[in-house]
C-alpha cells in the first residue's frame, strides 16, 4: 500500500494523524511499532524519525514525522478527497493557522500533561487517588484559562479556525477525548460553547472510527 502510518494505537499524536487520514477517506496501512522492545529507538526506526517517536508517515518514497506536519501535508496533498480541512482564502488560512498554533502551544502542553497523569498513570497501575486528584487540580487550573479563551472564540466563530471544521479543530481530538472522559469534564460543562464544539467534533465519523480501533 502506498500510504503507511507507523505508530501505536495508544499514542495521541498517532491518533491525530490517523484522524486526518480517515477524514480524507484515504486507504493506508497502519504499521504497529513495538514499544515493548523499544523498536522506536532502533537504527531502522531512527532512519524514519530521528527523534525515535511516533507517528511516522510514508507516501511512496516520501517520509514525514511530527503529527501536525503530517495532517497538514495530507490535507493539502489530497485537497480533492474527503473533508476540506485547510481554508483557501489566505487571510482565513492565517486565522486557522493561528488557532492551530494555539492548540500546539497552549492546549497540548496542559492537556497532555494532565492526560498523562490522569489516564496513563491509571493504565500502568500507578494510581494514587490523592496524587491523581492533586495533579488534576493543578493541571486543571491552566486548562481553565485556555478554555476561557476558547469559550470566547467559539461565541464568535462556529469552529476554532473559522466557520468550518479544519485542522485547528482536528488536532484537539486525541486529548479532548481523554479529558472529556476524566474528572475534568466539569470544566467543559461549565463552558457551553466549548462543550457544544467538543461534542460536535468528537462525534465525527472519522474520529469515531479512530476510537473504535484504539484500546480502551
Amino acid at each position, binding site marked *: 500500500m502506498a500510504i503507511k502510518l507507523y505508530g501505536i494505537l495508544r499514542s495521541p499524536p498517532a491518533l491525530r494523524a490517523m484522524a486526518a487520514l480517515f477524514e480524507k477517506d484515504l486507504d493506508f496501512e497502519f504499521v504497529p511499532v513495538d514499544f515493548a522492545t523499544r523498536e522506536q529507538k532502533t537504527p531502522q526506526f531512527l532512519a524514519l524519525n*530521528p527523534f525515535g517517536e511516533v507517528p511516522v508517515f510514508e507516501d511512496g518514497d516520501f517520509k514525514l514525522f511530527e503529527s501536525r506536519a503530517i495532517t497538514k501535508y495530507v490535507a493539502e496533498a489530497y485537497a480533492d478527497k474527503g473533508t476540506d480541512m485547510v481554508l483557501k482564502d489566505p487571510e482565513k488560512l*492565517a486565522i486557522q493557522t493561528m488557532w492551530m498554533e494555539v492548540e500546539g502551544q497552549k492546549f497540548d502542553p496542559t492537556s497532555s500533561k494532565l492526560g498523562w497523569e490522569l489516564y496513563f498513570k491509571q493504565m500502568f497501575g500507578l494510581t494514587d487517588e490523592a496524587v491523581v486528584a492533586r495533579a488534576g487540580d493543578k493541571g486543571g487550573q491552566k486548562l481553565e484559562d485556555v478554555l476561557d479563551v476558547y469559550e470566547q*472564540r467559539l461565541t464568535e466563530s462556529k469552529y476554532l479556525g473559522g466557520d468550518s471544521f479544519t485542522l485547528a479543530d482536528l488536532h484537539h481530538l486525541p486529548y479532548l477525548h481523554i479529558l472529556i472522559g476524566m474528572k475534568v469534564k466539569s470544566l467543559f460543562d461549565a463552558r457551553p460553547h466549548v462543550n457544544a464544539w467538543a461534542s460536535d467534533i468528537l462525534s465525527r465519523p472519522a474520529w469515531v472510527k479512530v476510537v473504535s480501533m484504539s484500546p480502551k
Partner: protein
Amino acid sequence: MATPPVKVYGPPLSTAVSRVLVCLLEKDVPFQLVPVNMAKMEHKKPDYIKMQPFGQVPAFQDDDITLFESRAICRYIAEKYPNKGTAGLFGTNPLVKASIDQWLEAESQSFNPPSSVLTFQLVFAPLMKLKQDEALIKQNEAKLEKVLDVYENRLGSSRYLAGDEFTLADLSHLPNTQFLVEKTDKAELFTSRKNVGRWWSEISTRPAWKKVVEMQNA
C-alpha cells in the same frame, strides 16, 4: 513615506517578538514596532487582550487582519510575500513545504520547551530577581542535549534543517539559541557539537538576525 500597514506589538527582547521581527526583516517587509509596557501590565489590559486573548506578546496587524502566535505570523508573512526578500522561507513546492513544517514542528514541540525553560531560568529569572530552580535547569539541559544530538546528526548531511536552503525551520531557532549562546554559560551545548556549531554560526550571522540583536541591545 506612508506608515507601514504592518504593526508588531511587543519588546524585541521577547523571544516570540524577535521571531516575528527576523521574519519581517528577512522578507524586506516594512513594519512599525509598537512598544508594549509590560512592567505596567499593558499586555493584560482590555485593549491589548482584544488583539491577543492570552495577554502575551507579540500581537501583529496587517491591513485588516490581527494575528498572534509567532509561528503562525511567520507562516503568514512567508506565504503573503513569497517573492520578496529571502525566497523559499516556506518552500517552493508542497514536498519541501512539508519538510519545513516537519522541522518547524520539531522546533516547536521538542526544541522550544527545554530551551525556553533554560532561557527563563538562566537569563530572565536573575533579571527579575527570581530564585533559579537547579533541578529544572538540569532536567531541561538533559532534554535539550538529546534534541541537539538529533540536530548534530541531521546537520551532518544537510546544510540547513529542512534541506539546502535557510527556511522558517532554522529561523524559528534563532531567539532562544541567541540567549543561550550569548547570555548563559550553556553556549557549549551548541558550540561543542561540530555541525550544530557550524549551522548556528551561519544562521546567526545573517544580516536580518544581526539587526534584530541590535534592536534587542538598543
